[in-house]
């Protein structure tokens, strides 16, 4: 009885003190995320937008929404996917699935030039220019690649964006083989997408043929692991149906350790087979290009530490983060310390290369680093983030690695990826961590059947993690990148001298309509608050091409052209020239107008396309 009373009192004490200290802590923590009205955030947060096909940009620490960059999907608000240039970039698809954004690097640190993003659905990769925040280039579908998920991982000096396939298919694409012949007929692919140092333009340089494992996530090496890249896989079972069960049978799956410099050499030496126009290297024929390392069941993330020595894989169905020592990996390769091989690819001796498996908790997915010797692993099943210390560990710690787990914080709910600024560089920023969560539950205001995604901002500058802000986004961020605001100075206008569109006109005297047979060409100027010319007389059946230049040189002076009952939304940012074309199929007079509010006389900014019957 006495004991009972004592417990009750103790419980009360905990509740009381818990409430007061928790409440007080929350207040100060939340104020750390506050950015006063009129002031700017200190960091950019670039989210992948998942199957929206976009990139979402927010500010840290306020988590305020800043903008969206349309990449693989049309965006009428940006005029993206309606003018000739962006339509050509989008090709035949109206959507894509953006998973893993990667910032360009120089000497292993972010250089603020480009952001690369993958399209998991249509096997493409895009480059966003961080001077303009616009999609500059899309390449793909990449030959032989199906399910461009393990992408885009940028090397130390942006030599390559490296990608690996989630799905395997019979190669080359377009070839039929029965799915039951999966093991024999299907293959995965690792691709080296070379990036031009000056222009950033991309091209598929070489590929590596792999067994039909499902490649998942990856990262690139630096320091001692410079020249290497790493991917986890699931389905080492090579099952082709009911993967949920069939691909979860073995206790270990394989991670691929790829020496991309060796792959580059093999391609240069002609040690490849051309498949669908790409040199494809068979790693069994090119020793030293690829090794397998067993990792605990169905891993997800595999992340290289800032110093390049430790490689951490999350187990997903195994409650540990496994730490591999790249120095041991190199020694094992040198001494050929292999525990077997799969299709001629050596499997490194697991015990030799594993430094330890840290019991971080249930459902470890993905690990990031703060540059102070700490690792942070997202725990999907447990809905939390575990903070733990990287090696070197003491003998006592090695006895029981649960001792190196130093902190945990609850996440709402079911965290997928997490990101720390610069975690994949030599110099992590180490101040903020963003958790990107898969289940919002009933946390936000109800929005009907469809729920937003949640993001939570965690201050990691102290010993203990502290949650300071949360926000909601549309579907569906997977991973993100964080860049200090002062790392870039984006343009506010396209200067007249930098506009290289061959059909740009700047002087209203030069604007006008010219005809060549059936072809009508309009050189148009948009400037507050009129279009010149603003009446376009054409005949039915003529093909019209309009080159419209927004001659404004003032920040935010954006003009648009929307044409009634024509599926056209063009946006010209200050200084831009856009080209679009249509054929005049129906007679009538079609008003067009400026869609983006520009001035007091914005409403008056309009014109007519008058289509008379052909004679």
């Amino acid at each position, binding site marked *: 009885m006495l004991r009972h009373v004592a417990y009750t009192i103790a419980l009360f004490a905990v509740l009381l003190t818990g409430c007061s200290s928790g409440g007080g802590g929350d207040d100060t923590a939340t104020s750390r995320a506050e950015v006063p009205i009129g002031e700017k955030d200190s960091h950019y947060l670039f989210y992948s937008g998942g199957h929206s096909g976009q990139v979402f940009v927010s500010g840290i620490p306020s988590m305020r929404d800043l903008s969206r960059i349309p990449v693989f999907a049309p965006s009428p608000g940006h005029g993206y996917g309606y003018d000739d240039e962006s339509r050509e970039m989008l090709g035949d698809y109206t959507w894509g699935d953006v998973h893993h954004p990667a910032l360009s690097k120089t000497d292993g640190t972010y250089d603020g030039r480009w952001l690369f993003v993958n399209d998991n659905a249509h096997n493409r990769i895009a480059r966003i220019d961080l001077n303009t925040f616009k999609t500059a280039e899309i390449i793909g579908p990449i030959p032989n690649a199906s399910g461009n998920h393990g992408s885009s991982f940028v090397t130390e000096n942006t030599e390559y964006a490296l990608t690996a396939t989630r799905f395997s298919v019979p190669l080359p694409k377009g070839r039929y083989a029965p799915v039951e012949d999966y093991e024999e007929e299907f293959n995965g692919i690792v691709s080296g997408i070379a990036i031009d140092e000056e222009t950033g333009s991309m091209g598929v340089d070489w590929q590596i043929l792999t067994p039909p494992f499902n490649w998942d996530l990856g990262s690139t090496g630096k320091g001692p692991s410079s020249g290497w890249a790493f991917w986890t896989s699931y389905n080492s079972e090579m099952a082709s149906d009911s993967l949920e069960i069939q691909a979860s049978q073995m206790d270990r799956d394989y991670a691929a350790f790829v020496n991309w410099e060796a792959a580059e050499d093999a391609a240069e030496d002609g040690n490849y087979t051309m498949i669908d126009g790409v040199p494809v290297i068979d790693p069994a024929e090119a020793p030293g290009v690829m090794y397998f390392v067993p990792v605990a069941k169905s891993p997800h993330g595999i992340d290289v530490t800032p110093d390049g020595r430790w490689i951490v894989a999350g187990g997903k169905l195994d409650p540990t983060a496994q730490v591999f020592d790249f120095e041991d990996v190199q020694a094992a390769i040198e001494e050929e310390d292999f525990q077997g091989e799969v299709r001629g690819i050596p499997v490194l001796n697991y015990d030799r290369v594993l430094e330890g498996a840290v019991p971080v908790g249930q459902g470890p997915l993905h690990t990031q680093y703060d540059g102070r010797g700490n690792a942070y692993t997202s725990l999907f099943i447990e809905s939390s983030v575990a903070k733990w210390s990287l090696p070197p560990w003491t003998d006592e710690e090695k006895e029981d690695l649960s001792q190196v787990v130093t902190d945990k914080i609850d996440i709402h709910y079911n965290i997928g990826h997490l990101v720390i600024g610069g975690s994949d560089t030599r110099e992590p920023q180490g101040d903020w961590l963003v958790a990107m969560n898969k289940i919002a539950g009933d946390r936000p205001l109800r929005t009907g059947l469809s729920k937003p995604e949640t993001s939570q901002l965690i201050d990691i500058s102290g010993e203990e993690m502290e949650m300071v802000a949360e926000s909601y986004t549309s579907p569906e961020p997977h991973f993100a990148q964080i860049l200090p605001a002062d790392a870039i100075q984006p343009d506010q206008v396209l200067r007249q*001298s930098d506009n290289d569109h061959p059909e740009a006109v700047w002087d209203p005297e030069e604007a006008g309509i010219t005809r060549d047979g059936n072809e009508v060409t309009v050189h148009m100027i948009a400037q*507050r608050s009129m279009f010149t010319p603003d009446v376009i007389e054409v005949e039915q059946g003529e093909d019209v091409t309009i080159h419209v230049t927004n001659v*404004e*040189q*003032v920040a*935010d002076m954006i003009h648009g052209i929307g044409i009634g009952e024509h599926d056209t939304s063009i946006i010209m940012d200050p200084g831009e020239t856009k080209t679009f074309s249509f054929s005049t199929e129906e007679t009538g007079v079609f008003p067009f107008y400026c869609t983006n509010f520009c001035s*007091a*006389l914005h409403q008056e900014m309009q014109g007519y396309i008058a289509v008379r019957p052909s004679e």
Partner: protein
Amino acid sequence: MDEASRSNTRFLDRPLNTTSRILMGLAALLVAGAILAPLWQIRLEAPMYEDPLLMDIYAHKLESGNDGQDLKEINTLNKYVGMRTIQEADFTEMDWMPFVLGGFALLALRAMFFGRIRNAVDVGVLFAYFGAFSLYRFYYQMYVYAQNLDPTAPMNMEPFMPAVIGSNTVANFTQWSYPNWGSALLAGFIMLVVAAIWRSRNESHNAS
């Protein structure tokens, strides 16, 4: 002319002393420098412009901020109220003003090498006339721009007088107008000329 007034003006014929000659030399340098310096600045501030719109007036040219785009912007805005397009060609004084300033530099040098106090006084008087005329001319041009508004302009606005020195508010804009450092050179010029006269005149008094 009686003896008293003759003795009052007699000092004009005396040569400039060394200090005064140095001062005249410096004055020549300043006025020559003003040929290339911005004389006046007009600045327009409005909430939507992160950086104000700037227009610098030189003896020989009109220069505007943001690589000349600010002048285009000012003209885009002027269109709304029906103000005539501002362009360099309208400022005919830019054709002759550099030569006049060059002339003052030569006159100052003449006073330095050959001069009597009389020469320095001539330079000062001529310059005062030139300065007053230029200021009036500037005022008049501002007046003409803002008084003759096109009645068909989108916005009907009462004609107004922009600030010549100081600020004026029109709609959402605050217009500032003030001398730039080229004008400081010109002010320095006239002060040096006066100082040169003063130094030599004082010496003449002491001598007599």
